[in-house]
């Protein structure tokens, strides 16, 4: 494995981690629109908290996909064709959710509720499907010598992957609730905190189930014991930290901790998978590896220059934009979107 291959594997992990940290709370806020808000004005208030930033956050996923295509085309090809229907669902979710903001804004008052629902449902589908995808992937999938993945229903949907899907959805929801209490004023802020407090109980059970199923269904504890234990522990510690911070009213800490929980999850999966990209359940010799699935050294080199040159600018103006929108959305002054 060359350094460039390693660099791109890490970069893709970082892009997915960034995606779940940022878009994670967008999904949570999206789900909250139909579960937390009591009236349309509160829905407007919630949507306004992510209005200016959600589209940029989604680009992290687009970039992760593009980076995968550019640096590990065999991975991209096997994964996307192999997870066909799940990714179709992801797309449907992203589409109905992505248009909701504008459509809801321009709809006549009596039809706005439709696009509130599509926003919530879309925001639920996507993290669930990604959780399902990654946690079924790490169990090994039937790929043949050509890298073609032809799996059956239970390869995709099994206890670990269902718990994985629910866990990612729940963590995104909690992350969203923490974001809401950080970004709003008024009754919705208190309600978000109460919801989160209650749900953290469920999260502990979910994390325990996840850890146990991970032990029985993957080889993570055999091949990557240290990192697996560390990142699992981190997920639990960060969840406790978020929970306690919320209890003490430290909203920023709670938000950062729930975001880092998602980051730890991605780190857990990416280190456990390493140095494989897709584990073949047919035969170890069909494993798709970082070493044999990448682009040529030339392409990786060019793309490294591009990424290293551009990322600082992207991060710069993204942070600036968050700085501009740092103000809380007041319940007394909702412009709505």
């Amino acid at each position, binding site marked *: 494995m060359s350094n460039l291959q390693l660099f791109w594997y890490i970069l893709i992990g970082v892009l997915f981690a960034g995606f779940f940290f940022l878009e994670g709370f967008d999904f949570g806020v999206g789900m909250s629109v139909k579960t937390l808000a009591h009236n349309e004005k509160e829905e407007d208030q919630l949507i306004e908290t992510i209005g*200016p*930033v959600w*589209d*940029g956050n*989604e*680009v992290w996923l*687009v*970039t992760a*996909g*593009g*980076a*995968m*295509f*550019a640096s590990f*085309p*065999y991975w*991209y*090809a*096997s*994964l*996307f*064709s*192999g997870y*066909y*229907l799940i*990714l*179709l669902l*992801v*797309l*449907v979710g*992203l*589409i*109905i959710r*992505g*248009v909701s903001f*504008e*459509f809801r804004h*321009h709809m*006549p008052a009596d039809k706005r509720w439709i696009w509130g629902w599509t926003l919530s449902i879309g925001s639920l589908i996507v993290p669930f499907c990604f959780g399902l995808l990654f946690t079924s992937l790490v169990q090994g999938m039937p790929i043949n010598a050509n890298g*073609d*993945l*032809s799996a059956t229903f239970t390869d995709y949907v099994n206890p670990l992957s269902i718990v994985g899907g629910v866990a990612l959805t729940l963590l995104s929801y909690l992350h969203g609730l923490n974001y809401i209490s950080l970004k709003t004023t008024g009754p919705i802020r208190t309600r978000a905190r109460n919801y989160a407090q209650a749900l953290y109980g469920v999260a502990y059970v979910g994390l325990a189930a996840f850890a146990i199923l991970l032990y029985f269904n993957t080889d993570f504890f055999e091949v990557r014991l240290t990192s697996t234990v560390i990142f699992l522990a981190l997920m639990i510690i960060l969840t406790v930290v978020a929970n306690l911070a919320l209890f003490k009213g430290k909203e920023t800490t709670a938000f950062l901790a729930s975001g880092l929980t998602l980051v730890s999850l991605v780190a857990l999966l990416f280190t456990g998978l390493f140095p494989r990209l897709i584990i073949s359940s047919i035969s170890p010799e069909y494993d798709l590896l970082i070493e044999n699935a990448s*682009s*040529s050294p*030339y*392409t990786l080199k*060019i*793309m490294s220059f*591009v*990424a290293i040159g*551009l*990322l600082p600018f*992207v991060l710069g*103006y*993204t942070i600036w*934009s968050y700085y*501009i929108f*740092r*103000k809380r959305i007041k319940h007394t002054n909702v412009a709505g*979107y």
Partner: protein
Amino acid sequence: MDIVTLARIQFAMTTVFHYFFVPFSIGTGLVVAIMETLYVTKKDEFYKKMAKFWGNIFLLSFAVGVVTGLIQEFQFGMNWSEYSRFMGDIFGAPLAVEALLAFFLESTFLGLWMFTWDKVSPKLHVVFMWLVFVGSMMSAFWILVANSFMQHPVGYTINNGRAEMNDFVALVTNPKVMYEFSHVIAGAITLGGIAVAGMAAFRLLKKDSLTELSRTVYQKSLRVGLWVGLVGSVAVLAAGDFQMKAMLETQPMKFAAAEGLYEDSEDPAAWTLVAWMNEKEKERVFGIEVPYVLSILSYHELSGSVDGMNTINERLIEEYGERNYFPPVNALFWNFRVMAGFGMLMLMVSIVGLFFTRKKKPILYEKPWMLWIVALTTFAPFLANTAGWLLTELGRYPWTAYGLFTIEESVSPNVSATSLLISNISYFTLFTILGSVMVYLVIRTLKKGPDVLEAAEHEEPTIDPFAGGAFNE
């Protein structure tokens, strides 16, 4: 149906639908940026209302464009995994650059633009819109780098059973890129201008129901739109001319099919205005020809013959082996004529429209039949843009990357026809809904007009974002 056909239907359906909104948002984005710039330079609130009003339609189009674009990135892996394996080393790079360079820029500054009206200085605010426009241009550039490779591969070697990049600069400076880029951007700008002018004309037809403000907004918009349309359509024509000549050299089969030529032409070559071809018997059923014109179009000279498809077919068989090289001839022939015909129409409507709306004697506003012509032209750029892409992509047949890899070889072997059918039905259903809602909301926005929007605005004092703490209470 077999998986290749289903995957091709999906590619056609998703790209065509996506491409209604791409040039729409690039073009209207430019129009809005121009209007807001007029507001900043003239300090006239009127232009701000105009920019905000058309900004609403731009935002609707942008939203649908973004979500349908997601499908494009996913479908290469989902439906065309063999293509992704063979081409990923080259094809993935421009897509990743596009995301890093363009998508982040577009979406971040669009968010800033939408939510900082009256909160930052007007001068800074208009910069946000221009950055969105720059972002969309860069996005177009990089995706066309990828497409240009498919049409005319450069900067690669065949190694390890796949195409590998060996010259990034060659990939970017592929002559096809500049032709495609200028043609596509000019086409998008034309669309933005003509669509804004046309939609304004629709509203001006109901002038009795319009307030003074609305009428002025629509009249001004019509002129701004026609100016943009004029500049755009002249540029389209020039870029198209270059592109035709490049096509004659690099993709002669596409060129000959677009002209419906089975046999080599005479010298000088006559141009066929309309024709119908029998694709089975490989012969022309009928056609109306204009002498000399094809020589002029192809070589800018009064002489010179053009090879017909039969000749080119033999050459291709010799070079690449036995295979069907004939693209769908009638489709190419007619898409070319739809594109060029509507292009000419838009150019004429722009010139004549600008003449009859000049300050001295703006009679166009008084004559419903003239307004109707401008109004109906709204649809022309959508048809022209779509026809242009159908010509380009159908004419690539039988290749996904010209001379390197065929469509048959490209499809995902592990995806079943059932899966493809499910996704085709899902997309079709979604597109029907999105398309209808989009049209409904654009009409609704137009009917509400600029003054209603203004009434709904809420006032907030201007804040300088560079002054620390200004946003925190």
